[in-house]
């Protein structure tokens, strides 16, 4: 062990150079003046004759490169394997909703695959899932600065802003994601379609009707007619209140099922049974059933009840919702005082029934008439209270007239009663949610009588 006389470690190697009579550089004996003559000779000139050291140095460099390449290659393989292993574990944990575990695993993956963008994106998903939205946001904004046109980053930011209910910001990021650069590995066209759907669904959920409409129209323009997503498009149009475009989308969905469009208006003609749309095997195809049901609903929303009935009849045997809708249509027929060939007596009877149904609906909403009259009923703002009190007063005015004998021949009262019933049902639908069969039937009748905008 090297140590100095005073006991300190010889960390500078002072004890090494024990021979003080030879040069520490070349090893030659020192001169009388204590200097090395060889090292202080005239500047050395290198020539081609000194090729051996140069060649050796070159060979050492080449060998060094080769050896390092081998070592680095081996280490890279190990590192990549570890990164993939941790990434897979992270994705699995994220799918299993173990977000903290996913964050750990993905951070480990990034240690071995530094700067891997896909891993970093997945990490932001894990951070979001674990509730670390501030960190995820910071990371995403950092990505955005480096890659402003990256669609995946914009999409994640859109989702983040959507969660925070910043609709305008979310819409902006969705638009950037739709127009941004997608990785070529996944089909960019399909990715953009998916994002359009997501954007539209979000806007519909947020009741941003105009923005949603614009998004849906843009989507309809790029979605191939043969696409299986036409049905989904139709549902969105329907949810957004655009029955006409919803119908077109559903019809395209029906086409892709190989089903003929259209049905008979207002039921069978001339006593003939309508020709079945499906064969026995097709009818059990869930996608086609859904397309038919959607078309029927779009027809209902457009007040084309005959066409709706046509489609509902086809699948009533295998679809419960179709049976329910058909029941509503049939009930509507029963309740409609203005149906063709209804006698005055029938009209009056139906009107009284409708009035009772409407009053019952109001009562189930929890609005005592006395309270509504006083303006202290349901509703937190004055306008809503006024609407309820208006309905209550109207009902008070009509109640004495609700007698079959009094109603016969008084179509104006019948008309007013029907309008009251429609108004009551529509108000109750907005404020009180789900309705019974009779109420749904009345709503269908209202749409038929008052137009599809109701």
């Amino acid at each position, binding site marked *: 062990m090297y140590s100095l006389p005073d006991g300190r470690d010889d960390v*500078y190697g002072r004890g090494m150079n024990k021979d003080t009579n030879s040069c520490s550089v070349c090893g030659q004996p020192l001169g009388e003046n204590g200097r090395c003559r060889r090292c202080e000779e005239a500047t050395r000139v290198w020539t081609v*004759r000194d090729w051996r050291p140069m060649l050796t140095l070159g060979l050492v460099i080449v060998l060094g490169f080769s050896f390092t390449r081998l070592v680095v290659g081996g280490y890279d393989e190990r590192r990549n394997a570890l990164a993939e292993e941790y990434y897979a574990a992270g994705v699995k944990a994220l799918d299993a909703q173990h977000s903290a575990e996913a964050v750990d695993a993905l951070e480990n993956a990034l240690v071995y695959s530094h700067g891997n963008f896909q891993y970093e994106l997945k990490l932001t998903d894990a951070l979001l899932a674990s509730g670390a939205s501030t960190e995820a946001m910071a*990371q995403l904004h950092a990505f955005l600065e480096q890659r402003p046109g990256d669609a995946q980053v914009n999409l994640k930011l859109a989702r983040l802003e959507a969660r925070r209910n910043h609709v305008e910001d979310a819409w902006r990021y969705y638009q950037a994601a739709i127009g941004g650069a997608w990785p070529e590995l996944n089909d960019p066209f399909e990715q953009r379609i998916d994002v359009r759907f997501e954007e539209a669904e979000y806007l519909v959920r947020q009741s941003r009707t105009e923005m949603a409409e614009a998004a849906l129209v843009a989507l309809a323009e790029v979605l191939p007619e043969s696409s299986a997503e036409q049905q989904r498009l139709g549902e969105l149009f329907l949810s957004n209140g655009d029955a006409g475009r919803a119908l077109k989308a559903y019809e395209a969905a029906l086409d892709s099922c190989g089903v003929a469009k259209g049905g008979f208006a207002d039921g069978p003609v001339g006593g003939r049974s309508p020709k079945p749309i499906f064969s026995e095997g097709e009818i059990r195809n869930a996608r086609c059933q859904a397309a038919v049901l959607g078309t029927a609903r779009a027809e209902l929303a457009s007040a084309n009840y005959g066409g709706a009935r046509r489609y509902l009849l086809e699948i009533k045997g295998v679809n419960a919702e179709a049976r329910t809708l058909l029941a509503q249509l049939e009930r509507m027929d029963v309740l409609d005082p203005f149906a063709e060939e209804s006698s005055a007596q029938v009209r009056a009877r139906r009107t009284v029934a409708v009035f009772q149904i409407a009053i019952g609906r109001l009562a189930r909403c929890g609005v005592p008439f006395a309270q509504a009259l006083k303006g202290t009923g349901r509703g937190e703002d004055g306008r809503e209270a006024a609407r309820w009190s208006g309905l209550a007063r109207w009902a008070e005015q009509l109640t004495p007239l609700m007698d079959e004998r009094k109603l016969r021949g008084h179509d104006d009262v019948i008309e007013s009663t029907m309008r009251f019933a429609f108004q009551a049902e529509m108000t109750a639908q907005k404020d009180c949610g789900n309705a019974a069969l009779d109420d749904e039937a009345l709503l269908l009748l209202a749409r038929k009588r008052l137009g599809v905008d109701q």
Partner: protein
Amino acid sequence: MKPLSEGTRERLLKLMATPVRRKYFESLRRMLGPAGLVSIREEQFFLVLAIAIGILAGLSVVLFRIAIQSARLWLLGSAMHPSALRVMLVPAAVGLVIAVVAVRFIPRVRGSGVNQTKGALYIYDGHIAASTVVGKFVLSALAIGSGQSLGPEDPALQIGAGLASGVGRWLKLSKERMRLMVPVGAAAGLAAAFNAPITAVLFVIEEVIGRWSAGALGAVVLSAISSVVVERWFLGNEPLFRVPLYHLENAGELVAYAVLGVLGGVASLVFVKTIKNLRPWLRQLPEWSQYLQPAVAGVLIGFIAIWYPQVMGAGYEWMNLAMHNRFPWEMLGILAGVKLLSTVLSFGSGSPGGLFAPVLFMGAMLGGFVATLEQQLFPAMAVPVGAYALVGMGALFAGILRAPMTSGFMILEVSGNYSIILPVILCNTISYAISRGFQEVPLFDLLSRQDGLDLPSLEEEPEQPTLCVEDAMQPSVVRPLAGDETIAAAREVVSGSVGEHFLVTLGEGRWSVLSREALMAAEDEAAPVRVLLRGRVPRLYQDQSLDVALRFLKDRPMLPVVDRGNLDRLMGVVSIADILGVYRRAGLAEPETVEVS
């Protein structure tokens, strides 16, 4: 040139048998000879060698980094959070092994390597033993990989310097070139380890060479660049830190940066003072304890790492997370503190490894701490945590390592964002000023002095103005004689003066000196003065340094100082006595005794 062997001579003679062939070989011999076209002088060869050193150093640093990562994988496993058992046992066990090897066999591998390299440069003519290089490589990789709180950059500097030293010895370079090899290799090693050539060059000048040396600059830059090229070829171009783009939005942010500078200065002081007191205390313990100190440090670090595994190793992955706002402010503050403690333990116990990475870690955490605290206090402000972390690194670097130029350029080179320059300068200046105000001796010089060495320091070297010819020149008492004037006329000119030598102008900027003795001894008075001259003398200019003047003077009695715009116009004369007089008047202060303060 070596003489030819007998067989070679015979073959050559046969080949040269005909006149044509003889002529051909004669030409070839001239071309390949010492003054031929394919010969190069050593200083030119040195630049080529610098590139080769850079390549070799780059390769060695690549292998070194992989060795550290492989050691980490082997010893602590692949997870960022190793198990508690490994964390407790591995640093201690490896510390014991390292201590036995380092203390018993290769003591020169202990410490960071920076002041050891400087010592090799100034004391041992650039000699670094091969065992030091190999030992540093292996033991540092083990120490850092096992979780000691140390970094790879300083050892890479020493490894690069050692490689260069070995190559220089093998090629039998001159002593002067051997001394230059050390900074060349050091810059190459550091540049590859840090992936920052400019930073490496500046650091080597500031800390290793310790003075501005234009002679070494070219070779140092070449080697740094070539090593970085090699390193990036193998390990990619990814920057060490991915920092978000930064813009100074609000001048009020500078207040926060100033606060960071103050905190950085205080943290620097705490760190340096602790090492200053701990290291000698540990060294004075009984000799057998030297074998246990790294192991004990390992146990303590392991204990800390159970809760804060971030303190283990260099910690670059954690710095990146801090920059991306992944830790709350409390955690950042704690990490800065525990890392300081861990690094003091690792370094003070003598484990081989560097201080760069731990210093950057502490700075990043401190900067992040200030930023996240600011976010808490002023939620409406958008605080760029990454920028604060980066500036914090610079502040600690400037305060602890006391390399202000290096720290500033390092931030710019690592971030690639010049808009951060203002906060960097502000923060670094404050941190540096506080550190220097309360701790006069910089850290690396402190360590050298604790080891009994007095090495030059750029910070401590007083700035002296360069003395030039203008300071020494005297007016000429007698007008210059003309080469064409007669000896008789010349005698008349000099008759009234007492000088022994006189300047003679020959026109077109040529000058000579004539002694009185030779002038008076001439027989033909009608002959021109020119006939008495024994050759020309070089001329000087006022702005040239006295070093240059002395080299030209040699044993001449005087030299003319002329106007650069008119070479025949005499401005004054300079002699050896004049030059010595200037140096006496401009004497430096007496050097201080070597004190560790």
